[in-house]
């Protein structure tokens, strides 16, 4: 079943269009990776899906409902959570308060239990629950951002370059977490410059170039594709 279907999406800032008709689809329980160079429009695509950027044309359907042009906070209420680029945690709140903010769209009594569950999954966060988020290391902040997004119990989790600027060991840990989430049935749309790691865990991958999807295939096939290898994996043809 399709969770998200983007069709012929055009979007940009003011008069400059960044996305020139992007189409893609994400099925339930899949990890879909989007790779592309700097300036290809990856972040703009995510921001358009989450409602921060208004599309000029095209549709974004979440389980059949068109969410294009809705306000960002409403889209969160409908079940799309985004881990923004650069670990957009709330610096002046504690780890615990950040997680509570993650559950902002929920009103059920099980929030506290879910927070406990996040502390079990990410023990480093549990140990620092009353510390201000700004005092955490980069890796811990990214874990917090992911844990916070999960607190909303989203139908679809969007991640914008979760490995950016992190040590290799931490990156490995984050990709392991994403794979665990998939095993638990979560649907994930992952935007990454770290193409190799992203495509390895992805069921399906898209390549975005200058605002257009230029390739679409399974993660493994894209890893083997000579064009992708040359441009995004740094391998040179012998």
């Amino acid at each position, binding site marked *: 079943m399709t969770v998200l279907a983007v069709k012929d999406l055009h979007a940009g800032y003011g008069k400059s269009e960044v996305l020139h008709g992007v189409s893609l689809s994400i099925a339930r329980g899949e990890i879909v990776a989007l790779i592309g160079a700097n300036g290809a429009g990856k972040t703009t695509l995510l921001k358009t899906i*989450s*409602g*921060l950027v208004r599309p000029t044309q095209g549709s974004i359907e979440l389980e059949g409902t068109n969410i294009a042009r809705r*306000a*960002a*906070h409403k889209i*969160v*209420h409908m079940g799309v*959570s*985004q881990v*923004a680029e650069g670990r*957009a*945690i*709330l*610096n*002046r*709140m504690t780890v615990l*308060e950040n997680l*509570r*903010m*993650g559950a*902002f*769209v929920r009103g059920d009594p099980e929030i506290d239990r879910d927070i406990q569950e996040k502390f079990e999954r990410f023990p480093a966060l549990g140990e620092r629950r009353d510390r201000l988020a700004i005092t955490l290391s980069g890796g811990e902040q990214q874990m917090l951002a992911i844990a*916070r997004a999960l607190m*909303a119990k989203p139908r679809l989790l969007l991640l914008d370059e979760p490995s950016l600027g992190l040590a290799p060991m931490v990156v490995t840990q984050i990709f392991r977490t994403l794979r665990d989430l998939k095993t638990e049935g979560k649907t994930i749309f992952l935007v990454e410059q770290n193409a190799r790691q992203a495509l390895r865990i992805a069921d399906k991958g898209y390549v975005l170039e200058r605002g257009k999807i230029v390739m679409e295939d399974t993660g493994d096939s894209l890893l083997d594709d000579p064009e992708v290898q040359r441009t995004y994996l740094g391998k040179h043809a012998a």
Partner: protein
Amino acid sequence: MIYQQLINGLMLGASYSLVAIGYTLIFGVLGLLYFAHGEVFMVGAFVGLYLVIHAGANIYMALLGATIATACLGVFAVFAAVRPVSKDYPLAPLISTIGLTIVLQNIATYIFGGQTVAFPETIESILFHFGPVTISSVQIFTLAVAIVLMVLLWLFIENTKMGRAIRATAENHETAALLGVNVNRVVLVTFILASAIAGIAGVLDGVKNSAISPFMGLQVAIKGLVVMLLGGLGNVRGAMVAGILLGMIEILTAAYLGSSMRDFFTFAILILILLYRPTGLFGTRTIEER
């Protein structure tokens, strides 16, 4: 003598704190220096006065009426001067709220005249003597209201869902929106809160000083601004403490160095803060961090 002055400073400071809290709340969520805030204070005082004089209201009714009136004024400010102006020009809401200041001041002058008006006695004035210190019932009442208000606001900001939404919005609008916070609504609630508090502060000021004027807003606005900078932009707790601090400094200067030195010290402190401690005494953040 010194104890009496410290008490007087506390009284003056508490009203500075109330005004500065509103400034700092609005600066927090919008990054906007809300110029009309002093005028909201003035409107609160006049609504209180009219309720007392023409409707025979007691002090509680006057406070309630002023709260409602200034809360509505907060809503009006958002729809008239904040939302319609483009977010692409950071200075636009500053200019439009300066416009609102002028409009409110002129309406007040038109309705109430340009003179200082006496505020009738609404609380029976009883003097209490504690050793060398004398406190009036009016002072105790105004201080109690101010402190209760600050404690309630603090609990609201720290412990409620809306309070957390306000703090999240103050850190970053996009981040807050991506967590499901309706940023527009948070801005509206913030204006309502800040304006209602300023309205109450206006009535308390009238009760305490028994005189109000349509031009009282400017003085208050400037003091509130100094307190906000002293406490750290967007820092509610900082504004509470810094208000009381400034009140004490002003009263002590007036008592020991002469009242002409009062504003001199206030603005000397402002300049020193801007030069050496631009994040405020309690070091929160700079404007660039937004």
